[in-house]
């Protein structure tokens, strides 16, 4: 199966790398202010372009929101 889990939702896996996924999912230029984890591990911004996505990966894309 070629699906991927993004923020808890299953989707077809299209993007080949984290960088491609961010470009596809976010209208924020260069993903500024975002952070990404794949399978529970942080992927640093510098590694987005070289981090390949595999079927079944669980990706978290987060940002700062209101908080106390």
């Amino acid at each position, binding site marked *: 199966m070629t699906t991927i889990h993004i923020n808890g*939702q299953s989707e077809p896996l299209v993007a080949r790398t984290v960088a491609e996924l961010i470009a596809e999912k976010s209208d924020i230029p260069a993903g500024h*202010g975002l*952070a990404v984890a794949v399978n*529970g591990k*942080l992927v640093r911004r510098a590694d987005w372009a070289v981090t390949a996505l595999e079927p079944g990966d669980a990706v978290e*894309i987060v*940002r700062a929101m209101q908080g*106390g």
Partner: protein
Amino acid sequence: MRQADPLVIAGQSFTSRLLLGTAGYPNRQVMLDALAASGAEIATASIRRVSLQGYEESLVELLGNRVRLLPNTAGCQTAREAVLTAELAREALETNWVKLEVIGDRELLYPDVAELIVATEELVAKGFVVLPYCNDDPVTCRRLADLGAAAVMPLGAPIGSGLGILNPHLIELICARVGVPVVLDAGIGTASDAALAMELGCAAVLLNTAVSKARDPVRMAAAMRAGVEAGHSARLAGRIPKRRDAEASSPQFGLVGT
């Protein structure tokens, strides 16, 4: 009156001793106005999944150049979750500061001390400036400081309860016995609570709901600012000892009719 001495955490100086949360305001403008009225230089933020459904306003764009954003790990229940959230926060906000929350009870939002200690140790080792939200327990606070926490942030009462400082004696003991700044976090209901925290020896106060859910958040933000400043000044000025009996303040000589 303005205090002369700055708040210093991890070598960074701040004029304001009030840290303000950014959640739960009636709208964005009220939040901005409340932040301005509070004088806070540090505002807390959470780290949450982005919406995949389209544009959301960025807290960073809104506040990034007004205040220093302090990310929290709110909602985390294990050290593992909290450490990952802190790492995501560092990446998203380009800050190594983190308000560390590890919650052990969803209803009480009470800290899980065992997990908090593990997470503090791990994050300090990873180079974070760790500000743990913790119990009003002198032993826990000292332990966290020994592990390298840059400050300790004991609760006055459960988060969002507005019950004030339920155990002032313990807060005072923590301030006297822990060698890092003590930031009273959670439970503040009104300005006198914030003043009391400072009178007890706290270095700063962190609050959110007491302002964001007040009838007039902007006015309450100004009141909190005044309360923190008054309490800090009173602490520095030194309160008089309490006594059992009265002591006349007017002269005891030259009384009429003697």
